[in-house]
């Protein structure tokens, strides 16, 4: 039996995530890659609940809960404290949602990235405040419905380009990933673990109740987000940018939108506007990728590996 990702499970069954939760799959893959010598720091987010109510835990590694704005700062402290006590091997991971990253935690995140703290910061991005019941965050895409963007046109602003903000901090490693490409995600977490300094991983995590689709479609939507160019998979390793998946031709974004009732109010004009912004960003990323031909062959190999 040949498995494409590690067999060991550090996520326990019996957790309280919704059916088809992308954030849970993301944790499952991340822990498979990171291994037991890992300590998690979790601010207010869905994972506050998924980690288990008092006396129980759904992960087989230490986990520290912290207030909403403090994932990066608390993780900084946990790492500093462990090092002070002679433990230099444990990988400290801040594990925050998009609200705790794009919005309330951005200042602490910027501080930790700027100091090049020796931690991995993961944003599992389900594109709204899902734990409090689907309110708009800085990670909510343009025209997506949430409880606080209830009009037909949905969210009135484009999704904040968080990755660009992080890149501007000159961090040693950053990457995007999503559960449909489990092997790619495991590879990136394993790679991140070997690098010293601040590492940032942005995980698009489909959310059935928040995006309004049937839970069986979590992987399909995760895959479509990449295939449409809405959430390109890339990594920036020591300043070198590369796309990890280069579809021959992007699928039309409507294939992704039409399966989610959060885009129910999308007008043809909104749709055209979104497609044009996706195309523009994709061209930019391809240009960056092609500007570094030395790594292209390697990328092609990864691509073959990661496309299901």
């Amino acid at each position, binding site marked *: 039996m040949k498995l494409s990702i590690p067999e060991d499970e550090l996520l326990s069954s019996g957790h309280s995530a919704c059916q088809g939760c992308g954030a849970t799959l993301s944790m499952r893959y991340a822990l498979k890659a990171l291994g*037991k*010598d890992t300590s998690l720091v979790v601010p207010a987010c869905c994972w506050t*609940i998924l980690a288990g109510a*008092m006396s129980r835990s759904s992960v087989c590694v230490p986990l520290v809960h912290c207030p909403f704005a*403090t994932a990066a700062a*608390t993780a900084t402290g946990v790492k500093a*404290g462990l090092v002070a006590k002679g433990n230099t091997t444990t990988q400290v991971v801040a594990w925050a949602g998009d609200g705790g990253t794009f919005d309330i935690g951005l*200042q*602490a995140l910027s501080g930790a990235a700027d100091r090049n703290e020796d931690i991995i910061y993961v944003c599992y991005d389900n594109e709204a405040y899902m734990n409090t019941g689907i309110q708009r965050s800085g990670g909510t895409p343009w025209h997506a419905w949430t409880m606080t963007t209830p009009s037909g046109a949905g969210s009135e602003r484009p999704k904040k380009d968080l990755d660009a903000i992080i890149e501007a901090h000159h961090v040693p490693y950053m990457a995007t990933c999503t559960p449909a490409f489990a092997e790619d995600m495991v590879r990136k977490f394993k790679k991140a673990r070997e690098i010293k300094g601040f590492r940032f991983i942005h995980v698009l995590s489909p959310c059935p109740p928040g995006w309004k689709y049937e839970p069986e479609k979590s992987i399909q939507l995760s895959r479509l987000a990449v295939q449409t160019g809405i959430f390109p998979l890339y990594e920036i390793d020591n300043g070198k940018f590369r796309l990890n998946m280069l579809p021959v031709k992007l699928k039309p974004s409507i294939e992704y939108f039409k399966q989610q009732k959060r885009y129910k109010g999308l007008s043809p004009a909104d749709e055209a506007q979104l497609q044009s912004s996706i195309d523009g960003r994709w061209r930019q990323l391809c240009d960056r990728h092609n500007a570094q031909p030395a790594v292209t062959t390697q990328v092609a190999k990864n691509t073959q590996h990661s496309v299901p």
Partner: protein
Amino acid sequence: MKKTLMGNHAVAVGAKLAKVDVVAAYPITPQTQSVELIAEMQAKGEFKGRYIKVESEHSAMAALIGAAIAGARTFTSTSSQGLAYMHEMLHWAAGSRLPIVMADVNRGLGAPWILWSDQSDTLSQRDTGWMQWYCADNQEVLDSILLAYRVSEQLCIPCMIILDGFTLSHTYEPVDIPAQEKVDEFLPPYKPMAAIDIDKPATVGSLPSSKDYFRIKRRQAIDMDKIEGVFDRSVEEFASIFGRRYGLTEGYRCSDAETIMVMAGAVATTAKEAVDQLRQEGKKAGLLYLRSFRPFPTKQLKGYAKPGVRFAVLDRSYSQGHHGIIFEEMKSALYTCNPRPGIYGFVAGLGGGDITVELLKEMWAEADAGKPGADETVWLEEAR
């Protein structure tokens, strides 16, 4: 070894002697020299811990919480807006039972902007579950930091050491700096109640039932009640090694006093002079110096409330819609005394206004004459 130190440097030297593992701090006037000296001592190799130059006070406390959970001894210093910005994390530190020690350099709170000292910043953190100890001189600042670690780490309750902005923070005074081996003798290494253990993975701070939450808070309260005993024992150890002794409160010429002034902070040194002058005038004046505001030393205070004694409480803060904060605490603590003493509330020196001997004597005389109403706050402004 005696050295002339400003209060902020006494803070930094105290942290260094305590062999703190992790400092996380953000600069704010008038606290800055404390972290500057820590950075300097680190550059010279005298301070061996890590100094995390965080981007905010909120993150400073968050980082210390993380470090303390990992088993490290931790320290920060701040002031005013910085302390207010930390508020959420102060609750989190205390609820997580982490013996973090912090120096706060007292400064008023805006708006409008104010740089000078009063006690609004610290007293408005009353309910965060931190000990609050006020200092009257720079020796006390240094000693209190060492004592704070000793007491905090026995009970897993965080402690705030408080010194007046500028009056102490920027004023040079002779300070006896204890030898490192004496400090090591007094202060054993920190043994956390629970630390991160990869081999025994556990989650810290997960969502409890209401019953669990209630019991956790009840235990916190029980342990806070134990501070007095632990403090006294720690002071005995401290005195046997360093020859100096402190109490949660201190009385000055109180044994036969009829009207006793009550206050916290460096202003108490001015009040001693006022008491001496009043005594020379044949008046039965005394001074009750409140070193510990949390826990509030109710038992000791009751010892001063002999029949007929009046208290003149000086507040350098004000709870809008009510009264000065120490005034209210005094009334609450002494409510059950029989007979109930006269307690009079005075507010002075907000935003750094001078509190002179004359002003204190005037305050004493008003209380001694029983002039202010029981529910009145008297606002005293320096005449000059």
